């Protein structure tokens, strides 16, 4: 009698509780997943994300059911095998083969065919033709910020995307350098910004609010800090915002602000950044700063837009976001104050 047969009689007690506890563990974790509500993707605020969230729940419950059935069968197999003392016969062998083919092949095939149909129908529902009159926005991804153009209104901004509530918006996605990915979990699935191509994503928000957007394809050192906001506004509010943005920046109206403009050009900020109507450059290397003070965040939604944050950012961007493309520029306190005044930073 070899070692295994000897050990058979001295086996530890209680695989019952072992398997039961495993099933319990998996089950409770599953319930935990189901109950969590801070999952943005499952808290949709637009039709795209809502459809997908619907898909999620169907697939989730199906998957959970499959897991539970398989684990129960495994538990039964282990427990029954323990208890039996007679040798299996060829009949049970044939039944076993049937279980394999039926349970492992036929039943999954049926379930998966159903899943396939569900998936294909779901995918096709996103193929609806696009409204030609819908608002168009062109977004170009940079390392590590978002260039946002409103061609229909004739202005450009950065890192903060405003859209009207209740209407589809066509976002055209391009890249200036590497592959980025545009993801607003509460509104829709993501779509990549690929150099050399233009991808189009149609999003819609059904309630006003500020929605988190992130870059979702690794793009370099500050990939983690390439976020953006989607601010959905009631149509009137949106129109007001767009009109204000479309206006050129007002020329400096105080001495300090004029000094700031001079600093802006002397320290060659103006080589990369445009302030429309006052200091324009053809370069698209850096965000457009027109109406900077109207934005709620800086540095691609990594820091709130306050005067002191803007000051520290300008002084040493490499401290806040090492690896971003904006160099740190030494300047005096006076120069900094002037710049802030020029850029319209609040108190």
């Amino acid at each position: 009698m070899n070692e295994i047969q000897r050990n058979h009689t001295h086996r530890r007690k209680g695989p019952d509780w072992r398997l039961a506890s495993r099933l319990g563990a998996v089950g409770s974790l599953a319930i935990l997943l189901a109950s969590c509500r801070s999952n943005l993707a499952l808290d949709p605020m637009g039709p795209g994300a809502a459809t997908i969230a619907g898909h999620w729940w169907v697939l989730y419950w199906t998957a959970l059911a499959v897991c539970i059935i398989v684990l129960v069968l495994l538990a039964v197999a282990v427990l029954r095998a323990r208890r039996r003392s007679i040798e299996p016969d060829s009949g049970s062998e044939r039944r076993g083969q049937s279980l394999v083919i039926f349970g492992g092949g036929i039943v999954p095939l049926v379930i998966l065919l159903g899943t396939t149909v569900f998936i294909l129908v779901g995918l096709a529902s996103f193929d609806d033709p696009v409204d030609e009159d819908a608002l168009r926005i062109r977004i170009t991804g940079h390392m590590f910020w978002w260039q946002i153009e409103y061609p229909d209104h004739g202005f450009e901004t950065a890192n903060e995307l405003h859209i009207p509530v209740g209407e589809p918006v066509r976002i055209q996605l391009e890249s200036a350098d590497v592959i980025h990915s545009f993801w607003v979990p509460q509104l829709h699935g993501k779509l990549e910004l690929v150099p050399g191509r233009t991808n189009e994503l149609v999003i819609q928000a059904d309630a006003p609010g500020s929605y988190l957007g992130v870059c979702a394809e690794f793009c370099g050192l500050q990939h983690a800090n390439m976020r953006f906001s989607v601010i959905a506004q009631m149509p009137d509010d949106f129109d007001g915002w767009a009109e204000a943005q479309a206006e050129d920046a007002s020329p400096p109206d105080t001495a300090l602000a004029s000094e700031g403009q001079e600093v802006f050009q002397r320290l060659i900020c103006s080589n990369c950044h445009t302030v429309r109507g006052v200091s324009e450059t053809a370069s698209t290397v850096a965000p457009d700063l027109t109406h900077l003070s109207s934005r709620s965040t800086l540095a691609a939604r990594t820091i709130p837009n306050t005067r002191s944050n803007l000051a520290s950012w300008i002084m040493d961007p490499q401290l806040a976001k090492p690896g971003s493309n904006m160099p740190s520029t030494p300047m005096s306190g006076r120069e900094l104050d002037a710049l802030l005044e020029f850029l319209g930073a609040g108190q």
Partner: protein
Amino acid sequence: MNETRSGLPAEDYGDFRPNQDALRKAWDRPPGLAGVFMVVNHRTVGARFIVTGLVFLVLGGIQALMMRTQLAQPELDIVSNELFQQLFSMHGTTMMFLFAVPIFEGVAMYLLPLMLGARDMSMPRLSAFGYWLYLIAGVTLFASFFLGVAPDAGWFAHAPLSSDTRFTPSMGMDVWATAISLLEISALTAAVEIVVTILKMRAPGMTLSRMPVLAWAMLVMAMMIIVAMPAVLLASVTIAMDRIAGTHFFNSAMGGDPVLYKHLFWFFGHPEVYIIFVPALGVVAMVLMALVRRPIIGYTVVNMALVAMGVLSFGLWAHHFFAVGMPSIAMSFFAVASVMVAIPSGIHIFSFIATTWLGKPVFRAPFLFLLGFVLVFIAGGVTGVMLAAVPLNWQVHDSYFIVAHLHYVLIGGAVFPLFAGIYYWFPKLTGRMLNERLGRWQFWLMLIGMNVTFFIQHHLGLMGMTRRIHTYAADLGWGPLNMISTAGSYILALGFAVFFWNVFRSLRVGERAGDDPWGGPTLEWSLSSPPPNYNFLYMPVVRSRYPLWEPPQAPADRDTAADRGIRALPQFNDERRETWGTTIITAEPESRVILPGPTIWPLLAALSVAVAFIGMLWTLWSVPVGALLFYFSMIGWHWPFNKELAT
């Protein structure tokens, strides 16, 4: 007499006796340093692959712990973003290329001749060559890591981030391209050798339908490697060319396309995970049979499922980039294929259940790890099917949901089976059993640790946490779950630590194992633990699928391939290294394969290939220089210095 326990009564051999002294001499390992560099025996080279793979598992695991520590709380600064990029790039590269594939290649190299009834693999020098390339590539990668110039654009190295030196100025991605190219060549050579060994060197009578499931799995794995790895070789070489030679394969400004890279890489990348999973399924089948003490239920459909997996897995690759902007018709095709590939996995799970149901399980460590495999893999498998739902994929792609999914399928589908196999075959390799109590500790720590670490990450993905970020803002609310996940990773790490402690301890004071501690069905258990250098004293013949379980047949039909093999036994020349050469399907004995003894040429050849590729980090002239050196080493390798053996 153990050596005749291939289902054959000793008296069948009559008064035929192999020359044990001659065999010992012919198969001996040269002593000292020369032996280290010249050995080609499959068990030594296979064990080297396994041990080296485990070392890389530890190194990759430490990298993971560093990342999890950095992510435990928002806005930590334990690891800089530069180092973090290198960490996740190295972690992925290490686990996929330096651990998962080589370790199963090592398992194949070690076990296949023992299970198939051969004295060595079909091309021992090629095994050694492949090992040296693997070692050189791994050392190069880790040297770059310790020098701070590790790859930093991910293990998948998407272009143009990876291919344009403006975006990745460090030489890290050049190192990546170099190391990957060496590793692919190593894997390809191993694959060809495995296919030929399985098809041509089985014991007489071991028809394809009597071949162990592990051999079927390794055959499928090796064929997949041959078709898939050239794609990643093209990917790594073209990345290197874009970086070094100024080509424009992925430069959209000059007619190239970054998406072309995704196609190339993922055409390899998806089969890669099945290249890892298929041999693990083979291990599961073998260990399960012994631990529930009965043959596998559904041998034929299980093998057909392995083949189906191998073929189907080549039709899925674009599901790794559903968010890139693809026509719906293409996405539909890949979605359907991705769903359907779950069916062969289902066959295996149910074969497991049925075999267990009708068997008598022994609740020792290997069986626990098998249970862990089912528990963890099923969760990963169902999330995989969920991911085939394209719109849902658009939400969770490149988020921690994917990180969760991939670790469930890889840890569940490969790591748990690997440990089941290690606990099962450790006695055969070393002659000692691994400690059972430590094994249980390891199992529970790994099961709990793994679930705590990764289950949470499904949530984090749905909450919007993307992959490959070195930190996250405090106001996003991701902190608590990340903390739990990090805690889980330490528990998982503890599980691995227990394993290595178990190995070190058992090697010195472990319970001594006999030839057959588990009562296994296949030929390796007829040999001593560890086997002698020549493996089988009496070259085995096989009359059934489970040679050690089924009693030798009564002499009803005695002119089978097995009998012809027995009659041909005296033709073996025991003074040189010889083994069976048999036909592909019916394993009729047809030749004696002469195998090489210890030689330095595989090492020299590997060094010359290394010069060619690693030299590229500094100059393209290394390529012709390395090629010339390779040429001379090939002459040395193949020149018939021994006239008697000349072919």
